C-alpha cells in the first residue's frame, strides 16, 4: 500500500483552526487525534502518547519511555520527550478540555501527565480535531477507500464461510486471516468515542464484531437476526460497516422490519450530498423507518468523530466529508436488532459508498 506524506497538511489545518480560536498550541491525546497529526496508530503502544501541534505546524510528542523503541521505529528523528510512569501520575484535577482515551486512563491522569509534559497553555484538542476532520484531504480519502476495500474483504470472509455451527471467534479468525492476506489487519473500536456512538455490545472485539451476542459463547443463534459490524483500518484510517444475516427463513415480522429499515436507509442515503441539512436526511429516514428505529451518522477517519446526522445536528454536510450512517431497528422483542451501516464520502451531488459490496438489507443464508 502506498504511503502518503500529507500529514503536514493536516497539522497545518489543525494549527490554522487553533489560530482562529486564539490558541497557539493544540494538545491531542486520543488515538484518533495523535494518528491525525502523526500517521501513527498509538493503540499498539504500551503507554499513552500526546501530540502537541504548535502554531507553525511543528509537532512535539510525549510518550512513555517504554515506547521509545517503537516510536524510533515509526517516526525516527521525531521531537519526542519521554516520561516514566510514577504512582503520583494519577493525582491531579480533571481536565475537561483534554480528551483522554487511551487504555482506560482517566482525565485526571491526563491532567497530571500534561502538567509534567506540557506546561504551556493548550487548546482543547478534541473540538479542533473535530473541525479539522469535517473534510478530508485526498490522501485521507485514498486511505478511507482502501479501508472500504478491506471492509468488503472482511464482509465476504464473514458471509461466505458463515454457517450455524460457527462460533464468533471462528468468524473473527477467518476475517483476520483474509485481511492480513490483503494487507490489512488493524481495527478500531467505537468504544474509544465519547460521543455515545456505541449503542450495542459486540463480540468479539476486532475487525468483525457480532452485535448483541452473548459473550459467554459467541454462539450463532439461528432463530435470531445476526447483525455484525466491520471496523477495518488502512493505515490509521477506518470505516464502519454493518449488516444483518439470518440463518433460517425469517418470519414475516423480521422480513418486514428488515425491508422497512433497508428502504429507510436508502431514502436517507438519497438525501446525502454536500450542503444537505441533517434534518432533511433524518426526515427521509423517518418517512420509511419501522417502529423503534434509530439512525445516526458520524464522521469517520482516524477514529469515530462527531455525529453529524443526529437529533440536534444542524450544520450542513461538508463535501469530501467521510460519514458513516447506521440504522437499526428491533425485529423480535428482546432479541438482537437489525442493523445496517455504510460509510460514504459526501460529494457535490450525492454519497459515494466506500463499501458497496455490503448489502444494506437482510442477508438470507440458508
Amino acid at each position: 500500500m502506498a504511503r502518503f506524506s500529507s500529514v503536514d497538511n493536516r497539522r497545518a489545518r489543525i494549527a490554522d483552526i487553533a489560530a482562529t480560536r486564539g490558541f497557539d498550541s493544540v494538545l491531542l491525546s486520543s488515538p484518533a487525534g495523535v494518528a491525525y497529526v502523526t500517521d501513527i496508530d498509538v493503540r499498539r503502544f504500551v503507554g499513552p502518547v500526546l501530540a502537541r501541534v504548535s502554531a507553525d505546524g511543528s509537532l512535539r510528542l510525549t510518550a512513555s519511555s517504554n515506547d521509545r523503541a517503537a516510536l524510533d521505529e515509526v517516526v525516527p528523528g521525531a521531537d519526542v520527550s519521554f516520561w516514566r510512569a510514577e504512582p503520583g501520575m494519577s493525582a491531579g484535577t480533571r481536565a475537561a478540555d483534554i480528551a483522554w482515551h487511551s487504555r482506560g486512563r482517566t482525565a485526571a491522569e491526563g491532567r497530571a501527565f500534561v502538567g509534567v509534559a506540557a506546561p504551556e497553555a493548550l487548546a482543547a484538542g478534541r473540538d479542533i480535531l473535530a473541525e479539522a476532520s469535517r473534510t478530508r484531504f485526498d490522501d485521507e480519502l485514498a486511505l478511507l477507500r482502501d479501508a472500504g476495500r478491506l471492509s468488503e474483504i472482511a464482509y465476504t470472509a464473514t458471509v461466505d464461510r458463515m454457517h450455524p455451527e460457527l462460533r464468533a471467534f471462528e468468524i473473527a479468525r477467518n476475517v483476520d486471516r483474509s485481511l492480513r492476506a490483503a494487507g490489512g489487519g488493524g481495527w478500531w473500536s467505537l468504544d474509544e468515542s465519547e460521543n455515545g456512538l456505541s449503542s450495542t455490545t459486540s463480540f468479539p472485539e476486532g475487525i468483525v464484531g457480532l452485535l448483541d451476542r452473548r459473550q459467554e459463547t459467541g454462539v450463532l443463534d439461528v432463530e435470531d437476526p445476526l447483525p455484525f459490524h466491520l471496523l477495518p483500518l488502512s493505515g490509521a484510517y477506518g470505516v464502519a460497516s454493518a449488516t444483518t444475516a439470518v440463518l433460517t427463513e425469517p418470519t414475516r415480522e423480521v422480513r418486514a422490519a428488515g425491508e422497512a429499515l433497508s428502504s429507510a436507509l436508502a431514502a436517507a442515503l438519497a438525501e446525502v450530498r454536500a450542503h444537505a441539512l441533517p434534518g432533511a436526511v433524518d426526515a427521509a429516514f423517518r418517512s420509511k423507518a419501522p417502529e423503534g428505529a434509530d439512525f445516526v451518522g458520524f464522521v469517520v477517519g482516524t477514529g469515530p468523530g462527531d455525529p453529524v446526522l443526529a437529533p440536534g445536528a444542524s450544520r450542513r454536510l461538508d463535501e469530501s466529508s467521510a460519514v458513516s450512517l447506521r440504522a437499526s431497528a428491533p425485529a423480535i422483542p428482546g432479541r438482537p436488532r437489525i442493523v445496517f451501516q455504510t460509510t460514504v464520502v459526501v460529494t457535490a451531488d450525492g454519497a459515494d459508498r466506500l463499501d458497496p459490496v455490503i448489502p444494506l438489507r437482510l442477508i438470507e443464508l440458508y
Partner: protein
Amino acid sequence: MDSVPFTVPSVELRGGARMPLVGYGTHPLRGEDAAAAVATAIDVGFRSIDTATRYLNQDAVGEGIRRAGLPRDEIFLTSKLPPDSVGYEREVLEKSLSHFGVDQLDLWLIHWPPGGRPGAQAWRAFLRAREEGLVRAIGVSNYSLGLLDALAQETGEYPEVVQLQWSPVHYSERFLRGCQERGIVVGAHSPFRSARLDDPGLVAIAEAHERSPRQVIVRWNVQHGVAIVPKSAHRERMAANLDIGFELSSDEMAAIDALTEVG
C-alpha cells in the same frame, strides 16, 4: 509471443454446453485494467472468461469482450451469484447480463454455499434460469461432495460444474472421481496461489518439458479434465498459461497428484 497456436481442449457439460478447459480468471481486476486484460487475453487465445458479481468488474469484462471483436458465441462467459443473494437470484442475473451487454451467460455458479448449506432455493432459481435460456449451464463453487449430494437430493439435479480452489496441494482423487461419477466437471480457481511452485518434484517435471511449474499445473489440470482459470494481467504470462501443448506422462501425473496435502 503474440498468440498461442495450441488449441485449448474443451469438455461437454451435462446440459450440452461446451466449456474450454483453460479460461481466464479476472479477479481482482476492475475498471480499465480488467477491460484491457480481457481484450488481451482473448487476443492471446483465451476463449473462456471467468468472473463474478462480487468482483465488481462485469461491465469491464463486457467491454473487454466487445473490444476483442469476436462473435459472442466464441466466448464462454462465466459469472457467479454471491451467497448473500438468496431471494434475489433473478435480479442479480439480470444485472449481470446488463453489465456484460449480453442476453445469455454460458455458465452461472453459486459462489459459496449460502450459510454453509446446499442452497436449494437459489438452485431452483438457477434451474429456472436455464430453462428460460438465460444461462446455458449452471453450477456451484466451493461445495463439498456432501453438499453436492444434499443439493441433488433436495432438488433432483446435480450441478454441471463445481469450481473450487484446486492445485496439487488440494488434489483429492476421491473428490475428482466422485464428481466424475455424478457427471460434474471440476473447475479450479486460484490454481497457483496455494501451489508450492518451488517444489523440487514439480520443478524437475517442468524442466524436463522446458516449461514453468505454472504451465505444468495448467497441463496437469487439463489432463485430469479439470477446467482451470488462471489469472494474469501480463500478456506474456497469459500466453504462457495457454502454451501447454505438451503431454505429462502417467508417472509425472502421479507424482504431481502425490503433492496433495489433503488428508
